């Protein structure tokens, strides 16, 4: 696999460079090589060739990152679980992916029913970096995102998918990382945006700066920008919403690139933020997990490139080998300037949801183009293509929302809220904006007030923290629209959180 070979070439030709800065400790590429070799030795001796999907507990340490590379050298996939997420959810993920072996760098191993590799206690071994021969159709990782049925939904991404992403980014003349770059990695490894924040720096021999668990993320990001003079930032827009009251104190002339993704970037804040980064190019990336992180971008510039729709910056054009299509409910292309669902085609597309034929039938379709059947993925995002060929984001076609960049299906939260309640009352989860313009979840309950402790305790065993509603309102009678549906827009007005 070509991109895996490229990783090896890069890490072996930058051995004296720093590869990671984790909680104030630096690890060189030589250190990384040593960790990869150690972990790989345990994988190749302890896990059969036929076992391809391996669980990975995502701690913030060098072993966790080395595990990803070690697995890839062996042609195996990582299936990450966040140690801070509910144990029950993580077990469910392992069960769905039929995991038997787990790599875990934690002090205490808690997944007793699995074959665990304790990655921080392996004695030194000889260096072994030559990748095995394997197929591009093999899976490189599976990420589980929020699903509407109460079960997490698996998105497998193949080595060929990742190689296509690398290929598309390398073809982009506006973005070139160098070995001297210092890059921010602020994402959980269970979140697909993390793939570009560790993979691209490693391919360039630059240094990755992570956020320690338990720190106040937003201030730590600023601390790294200021004290470590980061040059490459990759972030979700909610970060700058939280930092916005302090923009006047931020001046980061070292930043060369700032890439946004995982949510709508608003014009007004983009303009203010760009003033904090006087020497930076700003990219507004778009792309779902199903399409291997990025599918295209808009090159924002506060004077020359400010295209927006309803105050949301354009998502621009598709990148190399990717095509966009805007369709109506019958999957037929709509005219320019007409809103429709954005569909993507190209080599970065997942082979399909993990063991979920029903969902696959809904989300993928074939279309005849030049005598060929082209497979498209339906993103659920409403977009408009304008006369310049740029795509503009309009909204969602369903009840999926973004909380701090994470996708959340409101139906999944409602499912778990109702599951433990013996009162047969109506519950609806809505997304509401706080004073800083970030979305939070509100739980509306159609009832007199009662103690919700048990409901929340239950939800916390089922869902990660970003999916737990932060506001509750009891409403005697839900507002309804004229056609009898619950009026979610009206319901939101009950949550006066400003």
């Amino acid at each position, binding site marked *: 696999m070509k991109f895996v070979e490229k990783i090896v070439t890069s890490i072996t030709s930058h051995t004296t460079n720093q590869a990671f800065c984790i909680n104030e400790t630096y690890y060189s590429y030589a250190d990384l090589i040593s960790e990869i070799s150690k972990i790989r030795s345990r994988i190749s001796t302890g896990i059969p060739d036929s076992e391809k999907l391996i669980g990975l507990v995502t701690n913030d340490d060098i072993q966790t990152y080395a595990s990803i590379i070690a697995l890839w050298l062996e042609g195996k996939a990582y299936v990450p679980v966040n140690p801070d997420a509910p144990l029950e959810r993580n077990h469910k993920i392992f069960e769905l992916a039929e995991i038997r072996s787990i790599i875990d760098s934690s002090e205490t191993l808690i997944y007793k029913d699995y074959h665990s590799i304790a990655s921080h206690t392996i004695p030194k071994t000889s260096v072994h970096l030559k990748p095995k021969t394997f197929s591009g159709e093999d899976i490189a990782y599976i990420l589980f995102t929020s699903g509407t049925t109460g079960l997490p939904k698996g998105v497998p991404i193949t080595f060929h998918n990742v190689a296509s992403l690398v290929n598309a980014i390398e073809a982009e003349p506006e973005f070139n990382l160098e070995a001297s770059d210092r890059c921010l990695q602020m994402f959980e490894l269970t979140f697909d945006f993390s793939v570009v924040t560790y993979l691209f720096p490693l391919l360039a021999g630059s240094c990755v700066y992570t956020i320690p668990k338990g720190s*106040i993320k937003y*201030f730590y990001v600023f601390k790294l920008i200021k004290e470590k003079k980061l040059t490459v930032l990759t972030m979700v827009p909610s970060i700058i919403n939280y930092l916005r*009251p302090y923009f006047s104190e931020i001046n980061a002339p070292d930043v060369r690139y700032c890439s946004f993704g995982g949510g709508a970037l608003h014009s007004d804040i983009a303009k203010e933020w760009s003033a904090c980064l006087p020497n930076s190019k700003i990219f507004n990336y778009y792309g779902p997990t199903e399409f291997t992180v990025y599918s295209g971008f808009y090159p924002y510039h506060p004077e020359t490139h400010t295209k927006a729709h309803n105050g949301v910056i354009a998502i621009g054009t598709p990148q190399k080998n990717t095509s966009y299509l805007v369709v109506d409910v019958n999957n037929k292309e709509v005219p320019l300037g007409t809103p429709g669902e954005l569909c993507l085609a190209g080599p970065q597309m997942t082979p399909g949801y993990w063991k979920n034929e029903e969902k696959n039938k809904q989300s993928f379709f074939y279309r005849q183009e030049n005598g060929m059947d082209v497979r498209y993925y339906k993103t659920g995002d409403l977009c408009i293509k304008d006369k310049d060929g740029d795509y503009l984001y309009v909204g969602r076609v369903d009840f999926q929302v973004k909380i701090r960049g994470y996708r959340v299906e409101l139906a999944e939260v409602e499912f778990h809220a109702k599951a433990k309640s013996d009162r047969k009352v109506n519950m609806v989860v809505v997304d509401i904006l706080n004073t800083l313009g970030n979305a939070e979840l509100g739980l509306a309950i159609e009832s007199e007030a009662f103690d919700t402790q048990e409901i929340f305790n239950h939800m916390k065993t089922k869902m990660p923290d970003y999916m737990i509603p932060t506001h509750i309102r009891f409403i005697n009678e839900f507002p309804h629209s004229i056609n009898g549906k619950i009026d979610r827009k009206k319901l939101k007005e009950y949550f006066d959180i400003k």
Partner: protein
Amino acid sequence: MNKEEILSKVEHAFVTILEHDNFKLEDETTANDVDGWESVTHMMIITEIEKSFGIKFKLMDLMNMNNIGDLIQTIQSEIQVA
């Protein structure tokens, strides 16, 4: 304003944002000790405190704030300036 008065206003900000009062704030209290106090709610609590005291924190101070004691101290020095 003495320390007790400041603490009581700070507690009020926590209750407003976290929507529960199941905690006791002391100098050594950190985010690990209070249910729901994490990155996002921290930002909301800070905004709420700024509002109720009529002050504006500096990013540099917020960056190095590790517990309730640090927070109270920073509020005290901000009030003096104001």
